[in-house]
């Protein structure tokens, strides 16, 4: 494998401090994560079994994630998952070595996404302004990871436990646009931009 380049943030947010206690929305730029896309669209049963043997159970239900410690597996399409920050458990090299013969693709998406966290008591109101998803917890529960559109940008939304809001996996080149949109659209809720 080629040597990985250091990850540079797509944007450098200006921190807005001192308003966090009254802010309805808290925006945080998350540190770059390792994102591996696993794809075995034709027959993914052996693939799921091999990863289960390695201690990683992949979510089989659509648009739901599975958490192991700091690592997360997202269902993104039938026979397709993202593994986020699995570094401590399993590396790309071991995944490739464990699953050599089966028709599958493993792609490193780490550099392609910018991760933003929307927290605060009015995070749902802000997302609802630009996203057609049903954000009711019955339709989009904790751990849900549907892909949809927010302010014209295709992205993946991950609903965090304990009403902590959402993580947005934004295509990197749209990060500046979305970051500015979030601040404009969220101004009425009073926004705090936290350090990442």
């Amino acid at each position, binding site marked *: 494998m080629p040597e990985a380049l250091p990850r540079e943030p797509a944007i450098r947010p200006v921190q807005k401090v001192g308003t966090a206690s009254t802010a309805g929305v808290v925006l945080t730029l998350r540190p770059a994560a390792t994102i591996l896309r696993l794809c075995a669209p034709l027959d993914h049963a052996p693939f799921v079994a091999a990863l289960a043997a390695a201690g990683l159970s992949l979510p089989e239900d*659509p648009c739901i994630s599975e958490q192991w410690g700091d690592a997360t597996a997202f269902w993104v*399409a*039938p026979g397709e998952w993202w593994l986020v920050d699995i570094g401590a458990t399993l590396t790309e090299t071991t995944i490739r070595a464990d699953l050599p013969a089966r028709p599958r693709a493993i792609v490193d998406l780490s550099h392609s996404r910018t991760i933003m966290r929307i927290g605060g008591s009015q995070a749902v109101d802000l997302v609802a302004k630009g996203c*057609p998803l049903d954000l009711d917890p019955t339709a989009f529960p904790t751990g849900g990871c*549907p*892909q*949809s*559109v927010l302010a014209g940008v295709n992205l993946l939304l991950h609903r965090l436990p304990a009403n902590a809001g959402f993580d947005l996996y934004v295509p990197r080149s749209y990060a500046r646009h979305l970051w500015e949109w979030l601040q404009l659209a969220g101004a009425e809720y009073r926004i705090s931009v936290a350090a990442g």
Partner: protein
Amino acid sequence: MLLIPCPWCGPRAQIEFTYGGDADVRRPKDAMAATGAAWHDYVYLRDNPRGSHDEIWQHSAGCRRWLRLTRDTLTHAIIDSAPPTKEPPS
């Protein structure tokens, strides 16, 4: 605005989808032997039914899978949504 049931992701807004056209248009089988009229029919001519219509759509902003949708063009009711068939009907 349609609310389209993706066979995998469930009901989603139309803006997440891309329209792929009439599901039953078939390319002429013998390309060299097909007449100009047959090609014209394949490329340009479409039925415009009033009522049930089979269409293909892609959930392009979601799971990116193609699906086959049966839709009433008069009432906009969604009659059926299913994964595309593995083999194109002959």
